[in-house]
């Protein structure tokens, strides 16, 4: 009955890009959490989450990003956020977490 989060996955060399589209909130963060877990299992060198199509993220989304960062570190993978719009950025800022993450403007930049 509800439009769920659509998550595209792209493999570029040894990097995997996840591109969720829609708001990431309590009802939808489990979808991205599940996707991250699957990707980490395959141990790419780099995990990129492209948030270009995410207009809104709440603390459950931020928690998922922290989990993704931490499990990337445990698995010696690089973790990069891309396409962080103003609303999502201010959610990271208000939780004083913006400095924790590597943030790039584009996927191309993240690939470097």
């Amino acid at each position, binding site marked *: *009955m*509800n*439009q*769920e*989060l*659509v*998550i595209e*996955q792209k493999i570029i060399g040894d990097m995997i890009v996840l591109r969720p589209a829609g708001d990431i909130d309590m009802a939808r963060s489990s*979808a991205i959490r*599940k*996707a991250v877990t*699957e990707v980490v299992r395959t141990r790419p060198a780099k995990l990129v989450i492209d948030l270009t199509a995410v207009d809104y993220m709440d603390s459950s989304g931020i928690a998922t990003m922290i989990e993704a960062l931490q499990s990337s570190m445990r698995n010696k993978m690089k973790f990069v956020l891309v396409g962080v719009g103003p609303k999502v950025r201010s959610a990271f800022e208000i939780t004083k977490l913006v400095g924790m993450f590597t943030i790039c403007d584009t996927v191309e930049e993240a690939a470097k």
Partner: protein
Amino acid sequence: MVIESMERNPEISIRLFSDPHLLSTIRSTVEGLAKVVGFSEKSRGLLMLAIDEALANVIRHGYDGRTDEMIWVHLWRVREPRGIRIIIEDLGRSVAPEKIKGRDLSDVKPGGLGVHIIKETMNESCWEQRPEGGMRLTLVKWLSPEELQNVTPTKPENTFP
């Protein structure tokens, strides 16, 4: 069980004052729920227009422009066929439903467009006189076949191989 009771109780019920400045807020609410259901941007725009015209008519005709009266808006996601149901209730002037009709559009003049917009946008629009006084308007809109196709499958994990 839960689903059945949700079909009866509105999932969201709103009570607002008949203040035109509040209509933009209710438009946003309907837009928000329509997005969850899977309506396209274009359909959401038309839904906003329909609810706006319906509420403006309640204020203008039901309450003669008074801004301190009550309006109730009830909202449901509908499962089969997938869509949205909206009920608007007031305690204003009660008129025979057959008097509420859009005018002939070939006569270009300002005004008299609201009912036309509502009927054109919605799959169902039905005015009733409430036994308690005032009017009840029931509006239903379903996803178009194209919108249905673009809706995510029920199991989102399927999208992730």
